């Protein structure tokens, strides 16, 4: 069932890529313009997606014959948990400018460690030390301008 849906998603993505590619400007001196490769890729997505969907169309028949496609509670929980790192990155992107990289990273690590049931004191200690090391390595040693945020008060 998942493969069938992924096939449909690829077909839709292919159609969008193809349509967007048709809007790229063409130059009269060039026989093949900037739209050629994206159009081919879009076409490839549609063909590949179609093959994938067709080869898994049996899953749909199963649903038609009384089988249901439902995510189990455990599976749903695991899927949601797997989104945690992605959410942590979004949190960093949104807060690092005013909180500073050091605090944002420490918070991200602390929460992620708690999510896997690390003892809170250990999680706090490791998060702070690791954030300090990462910040020192990249800001001081590699001279990457990581946002300082609240930490700029201390200069």
């Amino acid at each position, binding site marked *: 069932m*998942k*493969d069938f849906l*992924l096939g449909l998603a*690829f077909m839709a993505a292919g159609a969008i*890529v193809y349509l*967007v*590619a048709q809007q*790229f*400007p*063409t*130059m009269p001196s*060039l*026989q*093949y*313009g*900037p739209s050629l*490769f*994206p159009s081919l*890729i879009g076409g*490839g*997505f549609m063909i*590949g*997606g179609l*093959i*994938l969907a067709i*080869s898994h169309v049996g899953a749909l028949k199963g649903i038609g014959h009384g089988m249901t496609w439902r995510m189990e509670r455990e599976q749903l929980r*695991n*899927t949601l*948990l*797997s*989104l*945690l*790192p*992605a959410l*942590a*990155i*979004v949190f*960093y*992107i949104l807060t690092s400018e005013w909180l500073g*990289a050091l605090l944002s*990273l420490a918070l*991200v*690590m*602390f929460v*992620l*460690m708690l*999510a*896997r*049931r*690390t003892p809170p004191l*250990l999680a706090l200690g*490791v*998060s702070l030390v*690791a*954030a300090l090391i*990462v910040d020192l390595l990249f800001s001081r040693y*590699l001279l*990457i*301008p*990581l946002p300082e945020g609240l930490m700029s008060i201390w200069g």
Partner: protein
Amino acid sequence: MDAFLQGLALVFNFQTLLVIAGAAIFGVFVGAVPGLTATMAVALLVPITFYMDPTPAIAAIVTTSAMAIFAGDIPGTYLNIPGTPASAAYVGESHQLARQGRARETLGTNLVCSMFGGLFGTLVLVFVSPSLAEVALKFSSFEYFWLALLGLSCSIFISIGSKTKAFLSLLVGLLLSTVGLDMMSGAPRFTFGIPDLMAGVNFIPVMIGMFALNELMMFYGSRNEGRNVPAVHKDEVFSSVPKHLKRYWRNLLRGSSTGTLIGALPGAGADIAAWISYAMGKSRSKNRDAYGTGHIEGIVDASSANNSGISGAWVPALVFGIPGDSITAIVIGVLYMKGMNPGPTIFMDGGGLIYALFIVFFIANLIMLPIGYIAIRSAKVFILTPRKILMPIILCFCIVGAFAINNTITDVWIMLITGSVAFILARNDFPMAPAILGLVLGGTLENNFMSSMLKSNGDLLSFFSRPISASLGAMVILIWFLPLFIRLYRRYRGAPQSPRTP
């Protein structure tokens, strides 16, 4: 000779040797912790190598990848969980041996075979690449177009599992490679008005997303902590190795040569080299029945193959700029950043850089022996490292590493988006190597096609007008139709044997 001496001077200095030692320890650590792959280690290393001189930067990558591939055997042996995908082929075999109390003996054999395989692949790299480079000097845009297409085609047909999924994965990478200003017309493509995307998608955040963030998401989506070490060891690391090598020296040579060859094929990395060598070893063994019950013969074949594959993958990467596996795909980007443009001219430039690279390969494989020995003796430290503490730290390295490439938050978004897409695809058995190859080779493919069209006034037949170009084109077409030929051949062979129904 001067260039060789310059190469020696570039490697044998305090900074490079320190980097090699550090990278070896880092490689052992990453390889030995289940869930952290060699490619992930290299992807995380790139932002740091960005600030190094070319020789230590390349040394760090070579050493880390070689060490991580060996160290992947450590948790495989003790826990039955391969540390890296390259150890998966023979994990059952090594774990069975560990259960018999022969863990250290197994890992000692693994270590020596890995070192031998790595050195064998390096010798091939040293002796074959310069000769191939002389041929490659005659190549023009027509040949490079076919070469890129050959690499992309191989990545689909060599991949394990559904070819349709490999094809779609490749297209994802190719699509990413089209983002940015078009080379010929200067028209922006898929930039969505974001200035940071005008120069295209930087491949390092994509790599970090696909190989590190994807793994992190997999970890949080599972409950497996994998911390028990049930096997006990009563044996010594190297005491039985001479006996095994004397008995299975043919397997060692066969595994190393097969691994080098498979490694050199684009899209096929150390993991596929190990699987194929293990299968070959089993099919040719006199003790086929002993496989799967803890038989050292299978380990000799596969563990030499995965390390020789790592070295073999560098041959097309250096000579043609076509990566042999995901790690060399990253390396090609690093070489460009360091001004060492991969391609035949890298062998002609002089200055000792290419010799330095060869020397680094030898050192990386030789240093494997002492550091690997220490790693085997202290295996528990590595495999008991709690991943619930390690993974959040790795995530922070991912964020800061992606940011550090261009000092822009856009790259962190790119890492997040590509990592999330890779997670969905990988969970549904889409291979990731074709996507990476698509991203790296997409520009080469399109630019050489466009240049060729300009040269030939749009005549598509010109791709077959030069002898080497025509041969490469024929090879590509043959690869495309090979599955059909095989199917027809099997049907033809199978027809007389098939039972006839009245």
